[in-house]
């Protein structure tokens, strides 16, 4: 019994240690950008200005997705000094899906799986220095994935 108590205490202590810096991190989350139903508001909330269309952003996604609940997308930026990649789905209830920031040797590359409510463009915005670049790929969705 004593040992169990000690373990409970230990787990509690470790958890609180972990939580302290993380709850401070929670303030980082861009609420305005993630909760808006409007694509242009989401983009504005990410401080994006003057997007330049660029074929140096590669988007690999299926032309047709059977199930919108899981659509795998691969994004690679060939733009020099890419700092971040944002993924937006224009016709989702909340368009902003994810924002990835790269540092210390991380390649501007990501593969993830996203939800798509209906047929829509998957829009990617890349930040490089003070400039913003964008590209998009249309994905036909056969079955709604947002529930």
């Amino acid at each position, binding site marked *: 019994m004593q040992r169990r108590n000690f373990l409970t205490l230990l787990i509690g202590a470790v958890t609180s240690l972990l939580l302290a810096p993380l709850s401070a991190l929670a303030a980082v989350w861009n609420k305005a950008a993630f909760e808006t139903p409007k694509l242009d508001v989401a983009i504005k909330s990410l401080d994006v200005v003057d997007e330049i269309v660029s074929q140096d952003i590669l988007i690999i996604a299926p032309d047709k997705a059977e199930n919108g609940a899981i659509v795998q997308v691969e994004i690679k930026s060939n733009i020099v000094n890419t700092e971040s990649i944002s993924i937006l789905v224009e016709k989702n209830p909340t368009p902003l899906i994810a924002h990835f920031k790269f540092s210390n040797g991380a390649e501007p590359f990501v593969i993830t799986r996203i*939800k798509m409510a209906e047929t829509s463009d998957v829009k990617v915005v890349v930040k490089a220095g003070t400039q913003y670049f964008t590209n998009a790929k249309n994905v036909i969705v056969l079955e709604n994935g947002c529930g």
Partner: protein
Amino acid sequence: MASDNMKMRAQLKGEVTEIKVLMSHPMETGRKKDDFDQLIPAHFVQLLTATLNGQTVLEAQWGTGISKNPYLTFRLKGAKVGDTVVVTWLDNLGKTATQDITVTQA
């Protein structure tokens, strides 16, 4: 710190280390209803960070549009066999999980 929540792999191929992460998380949007017509509250991962030997390499912010049981692949330059990659996530309910993996040769 090990947990059952995440499955990870980090493999060095040439100059690039590819890290694959599969997380266990419901990723509820807050718009779905249960069998009793009640809205299921939003429950989703908001922040994810990855470090290489303690140094931050990736900082992600996610919305509800990431699929259930999130999957992520990212790539690092400059990592060596034996280096440690740590991934930590935090969700909107304050839950968190962390997992580390050692870089191996592909």
